[in-house]
């Protein structure tokens, strides 16, 4: 299943630097007896593992991460991070619940054994007819009034479906949200970054990242520059990230908006992303640090989710067919991010706000706050809350309706819908020594959205936008090695 890459925001541990003086070695100096070379500086290791579980048999992720930083002296360092993640469970395929049984073919490579109760591929049971043979052509009316219809599978028999299914079909019971249960994959990602001062007040970083999974590969390079002035109370920063993604869907990338049962496929796809950021960080007083960032990113190429479909319905809400989604081939996003950190004698309060808007018609606001309560010298507890809201993409459709005006782009991907997200959790930390820290956090993330006010008769009583509920548990350990 296509997994989205980890967001490559520029994350630098920038130690502040001044010019390195040219050392004048002295033949009999006490210091030449030193063995404190950079080879003896310990490695800083930061590791963690994430368990993410959505309720209702949906997505489950286990993701261990390890990050190693080597200090080469003179404020130069190399950081390397390795991430492994394994994904399983079911993910919405974009179709909406129905009052009748629905059958879908899985597009991924892992084949499913149909259970004893599910309809066979070659039979002519009622369910089979509805899902394959009985599907009518989906008709559209263009702006000029012309009626066009997409080809469908009505002339093909049930037997042909099994050849194209790339694994057995899966059945969805009435009233249930259709989930593709073969959402299974493993991903490996590596990233590395070199940081060094380039003058008394400037620091530079350069890095790269690579990730790979069955149907997706990503390669990126990044660079960042920061300039301190005003006695290091003000810092200006700028960064850029360039990324190339290869999308290699299992079974091939589908022809957009084509009838799902035809399995019309095209070749592998790709996209390029350019990300730019500028920021200013200001120390206001001994207790207050503030950072403001503005970023733009532009993505060009294949933006679709190759496995997502939409339900195509008649005016009463009966299923006619399913079609693959289509999104524009570019996307530009702008966001502004403002973070404030307040230090009390022992505790720390962090609050941030982000506003994002893109050319797909989506805008979002995120407010994130956490309060770190120090309990003695070794323990802390940190409650956390994150409130998120996004509007839907212009081309987001819960489903398509026969006879509606033709749309060039349509997607039922819940990620592009209008919804509210809330995260609440707590983190606890224990530090047995200055160089070690154990942490554990438990959070719950909930997405709630609204179904449309008016629904056709066949959809009434169905929960068309059930949202999402997920448990997040992460354990972490930092140490020196």
């Amino acid at each position: 299943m296509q997994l989205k890459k980890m967001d490559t925001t520029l994350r630098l541990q920038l130690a502040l630097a001044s010019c390195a003086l040219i050392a004048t070695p002295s033949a009999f100096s006490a210091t030449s007896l030193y063995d404190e070379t950079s080879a003896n500086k310990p490695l800083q290791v930061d590791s963690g593992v994430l368990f993410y579980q959505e309720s209702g048999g949906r997505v489950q992720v286990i993701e261990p991460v390890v990050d190693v930083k080597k200090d080469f002296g003179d404020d130069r360092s190399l950081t390397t991070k390795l991430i492994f993640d394994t994904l399983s469970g079911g993910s919405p395929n974009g179709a909406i619940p129905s009052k009748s049984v629905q059958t879908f073919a899985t597009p991924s490579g892992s084949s499913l054994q149909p259970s004893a109760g599910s309809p066979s591929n070659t039979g002519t049971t009622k369910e089979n007819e509805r899902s394959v043979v009985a599907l009518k052509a989906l008709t559209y009316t263009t702006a000029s009034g012309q009626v066009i219809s997409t080809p469908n599978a009505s002339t093909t028999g049930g037997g042909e479906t099994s050849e194209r299914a790339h694994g057995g079909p899966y059945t969805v019971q009435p009233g249930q949200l259709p989930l593709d249960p073969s959402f299974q994959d493993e991903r490996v990602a590596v990233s590395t970054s070199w940081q060094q001062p380039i003058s008394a007040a400037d620091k530079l970083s350069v890095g790269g990242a690579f990730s790979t999974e069955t149907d997706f590969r990503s390669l990126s390079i990044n660079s960042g520059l920061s300039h301190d002035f005003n006695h290091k109370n003000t810092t200006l920063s700028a960064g850029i990230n360039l990324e190339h993604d290869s999308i290699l869907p299992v079974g091939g990338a589908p022809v957009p908006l084509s009838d799902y049962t035809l399995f019309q496929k095209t070749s592998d796809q790709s996209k390029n992303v350019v990300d730019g950021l500028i920021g200013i960080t200001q120390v206001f007083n001994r207790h207050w640090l503030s950072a403001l960032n503005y970023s733009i990113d532009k993505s060009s190429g294949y933006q679709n989710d190759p496995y997502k479909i939409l339900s195509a319905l008649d005016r009463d809400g009966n299923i006619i067919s399913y079609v693959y989604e289509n999104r524009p081939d570019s996307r530009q996003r702008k966001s502004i991010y403002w973070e404030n950190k307040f230090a009390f004698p022992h505790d720390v309060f962090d609050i941030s706000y982000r506003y994002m808007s893109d050319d797909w018609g989506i805008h979002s606001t995120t407010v994130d706050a956490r309060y770190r309560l120090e309990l003695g010298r070794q323990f802390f507890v940190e409650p956390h809350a994150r409130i998120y809201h996004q509007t839907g993409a212009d081309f987001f459709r819960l489903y398509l309706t026969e006879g509606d005006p033709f749309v060039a782009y349509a997607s039922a991907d819940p990620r592009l819908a209008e919804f509210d997200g809330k995260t609440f959790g707590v983190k606890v930390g224990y530090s047995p020594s200055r160089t070690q820290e154990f942490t554990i956090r438990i959070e719950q993330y909930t997405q709630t959205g609204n179904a449309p006010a008016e629904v056709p008769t066949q959809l009434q009583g169905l929960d068309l936008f059930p949202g999402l509920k997920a448990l997040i548990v992460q354990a972490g350990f930092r140490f020196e090695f």
Partner: protein
Amino acid sequence: MFSARAIARILLAITISYGTSLFAADSEFNIDSYKGQVVYVDFWASWCAPCRESFPWLKTIQQAYGARDFTVIAINVDEDHQLAEDFLKEFKPSFPIVFDPKGKLAEKFGVEGMPTSFIIDRTGKTRFSHPGFRLSDRDGLEAKIRSLLPPQ
């Protein structure tokens, strides 16, 4: 015996001298009392990561040159005195420590960054100032100290 006014005056005198001696204890660092010696003044704090690297080196140069009219004086700027004490317990320095929690000495010396060191010659004149500390600075700093010491 003593009149109320006298007692009041005595109490006032004690309070003022105690009060000023409190301030004097942490900001009245008289560099003149070190004339005749080369002094390496180092402004440090428990929260300053490079200071963890500089302290072992300061101990070494104190040991190497302490017998030659030289001393390190480390001035601490921690506002939380306990943190400074923890640091000193860990590094066990052999040279004098001065506490400047309000930063008055740091202000007077014109500290521009943490850590900062000043090398003062035997006449009491500040000859070098050095912001920051890196391991690659050690040889250069030591050469400067040696240039001010009386010839052996």
